[in-house]
Structure formats: C-alpha cells, structure tokens
C-alpha cells in the first residue's frame, strides 16, 4: 500500500519544478511576485488555523507575525490573488479531517523544503523559522493518513494555480 508521500509525489515534483519555484531558487522573483506569494500563504495558513484551531494545538502553527515581518521587508504592497480566494473556498468546503491534508502540504513543506529554500533565497524568510520543528511535525503526522492523498493533491493543484498566477 502506498504512503501519503508516495501518493502525492508526482504533484510534489511538479510543484518543485514549476517556473515559480525555479525563479525563487534563482532569486529571480520580483519584489511584487514575492510579496504576493507571502500574502497568499499567510492568508491560507490563517484560514487553516481558524478552521482547525491549530494554534491551540501548538504555538508554531501561528505564523502570521513571521509572514508580516517578511512582507514588510519587501517594501511592497501585496496586490492579492484570485488563487487565494479559490483556495479559501476549497478549505471552507471540506471537513476538518480533510483540511489536515492542506496542513500537511504547507507546514510540512516549509519544515522540509522551506529550510533548503531559505539557504538559497536572498529575501528574509522568517516564516520558515521554527523553535520547535519536531513538536510541530509530530502533531501534523498524528493527524494525517494515506486516506488524505486526494485532498493533498488538490492542495498541490491549487498551490500550482497560485504560483502560475503569481508568475503572470
């Protein structure tokens, strides 16, 4: 039987090879693209927190102030994305159990890939700094299962939609 990681691997790879991630790794994102990404992600995580009460489970789920620090550091105003609204609608339309699939995609992504990106990206990335990464990962893994693969793949699809919009 395949694991959640294996069942989402194809989409994970697609996201890693997207034009957005490529530009991020080469430090070729404009300040406007970067700030739009930060706001998209901030709002998404706030919505997940609201739905699941994440910050009551672990303080590390609360990322707003770190995102705000990174947004202010760009010196730019975010312009907002249609993809944010689409993603929020998806989160609001699913069960709490399913919503953990999106926690898996985003928080675990930042706990792992985010650390690698931080070494390459010149812009401040306080939003991937954690004091208790292990504690956070333990809680996430306790709430996800292989049965969430379909919803996690929806998360990757919506993420790629946002990345494409950012790159327009």
């Amino acid at each position, binding site marked *: 039987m395949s694991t959640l990681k294996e069942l989402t691997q194809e989409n994970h790879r697609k996201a890693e090879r997207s034009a957005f991630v490529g530009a991020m790794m080469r430090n070729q994102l404009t300040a406007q693209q970067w700030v739009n990404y930060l*706001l998209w992600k*901030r*709002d998404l995580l*706030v*919505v997940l*927190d*609201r739905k699941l009460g994440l910050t009551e489970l672990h303080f590390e789920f609360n990322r*707003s102030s770190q*995102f*705000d620090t990174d*947004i*202010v550091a760009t*010196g*730019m*105003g*975010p*312009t*907002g994305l*249609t993809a*944010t*609204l689409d993603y*929020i*609608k998806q989160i*609001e339309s699913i069960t709490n159990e399913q919503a953990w699939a999106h926690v898996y995609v985003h928080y675990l992504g930042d706990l792992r890939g985010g650390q690698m990106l931080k070494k390459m990206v010149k812009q401040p990335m306080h939003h991937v700094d954690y004091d208790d990464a292990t504690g956070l990962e333990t809680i996430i893994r306790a709430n996800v299962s292989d049965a969430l693969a379909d919803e996690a793949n929806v998360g990757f699809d919506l993420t790629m939609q946002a990345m494409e919009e950012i790159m327009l």
Partner: protein
Amino acid sequence: MSKVWDTMLGLQANIEQQLNEVGHPVEEGHTFDWPNHVWSSTTFRRAHLDAVDARESKGLYMLHVTVFPHIIDPSPIFGFDIICGERKITGCFHDFSASSDKEHPMMSWFQDYAKQFEWRKARELPDWARRIFSPGMIAAGNVSDELEIDQILQIVSTTLPWYLENVGKTNGKGNPQEILEAQNYYCNNQRQNPHTPRVMQSLGFDEETVHRFINDCLFPDLV
C-alpha cells in the same frame, strides 16, 4: 487661495502621509487624468485615495478615501468622501461600514464616537445607502461655518489614525467567504449611488471614463 480649499489640500496631504507611513504603494495601472493612489499592508488589503481638483475649471474639489480590510479580517470598511466649493463643503460622508461582522468592536467605537456630532445627518437615505451604511454614518451638506468645517476635518483626523491602528487586529477571526461577499456587497451598493457619476460628469469627465473609474478603481469587486 480660499480657506476651504486650503484646508482640503492639507487634509489630502495628511491622509496620503498617514497611508504612506502604514502601507506600501501599489501600482494598479490606472490611467485616469486625476491622481489615484493605492496602498496595501499586512493589516489592510487596499486603501484608495483619489482627488479630483477642478478648482480652476469648475470651482470644485472632491476627495474619496476607502480602506478595505484583508479577506481574513471582518473589520469594517473605512469610507470618507468630501466635495467642496470655494467657500463651503457641499457634501461630506463618512462611515465605518460593516463587513461580515455587524457587531465588530470597531463598529461600536465609531458609532459611539459619532454620537457627539448632533448635526451629523438627519436625512433620508436611499435604499443602496441604507443597505451598507452604519447607524453612526456621518453626513453633512452645505457647511460654510468655519468651526463646523474644522470639526469635520477633526473627525477624519481622529477616525483614520484610529482605524489604521486597529484594522487587522481581527485577522483570522471571520469567515473569508462571508467577508469577501460583504466587501463585494458594499462595493455593489456603492456603485448604485447615482450621485457619483453625476458629480464626476459635471466635473467634465465623459460617461465611459466615469463608469470605468467607478467599477475598476473606486469600488472594484473582488473576484
């Protein structure tokens, strides 16, 4: 220069300064013949200021200011409009209008604050306005008394800093879908205000430009 216009230009500069201090300019690519400034920040989604300076051609000056919270924040929408001639304020409207939370603490603050201004309205509002404006909405017309003009200016000098200090504090406290719908509802009703196109056309702008301005820049829908 007239005292009224002098005061208005000072007010415009003051509002721009405040928004520059807390927000970052956003280039939306508008190409209208009058200044349109847009800002955003971590605490608000979109602040917009436009000033139509037709003092020489029409003897009128008009200023619009709106601030919309982020779609994760149920805070009210800030709105301030003023139009004036050389010697008087022809019309002034100001409100903290409800988003998805009609009981939001910022709404209560504004309504308590507005209570002290006895002259503030007592006028029949059209349907589109009753649907979106709060009971504390401030409206004034034909104000030529200097003390009263100063008082109107004092109001927005109090409410805007307070609003900017408090908006964003309830990020994550509301349902984003409801907030989105509430902000669109506000814009949709504002677009039904027949005075806006009438005034702008009287200032010399053609119908197509005015329509595009109201729909794309002044009160644009979120998707």
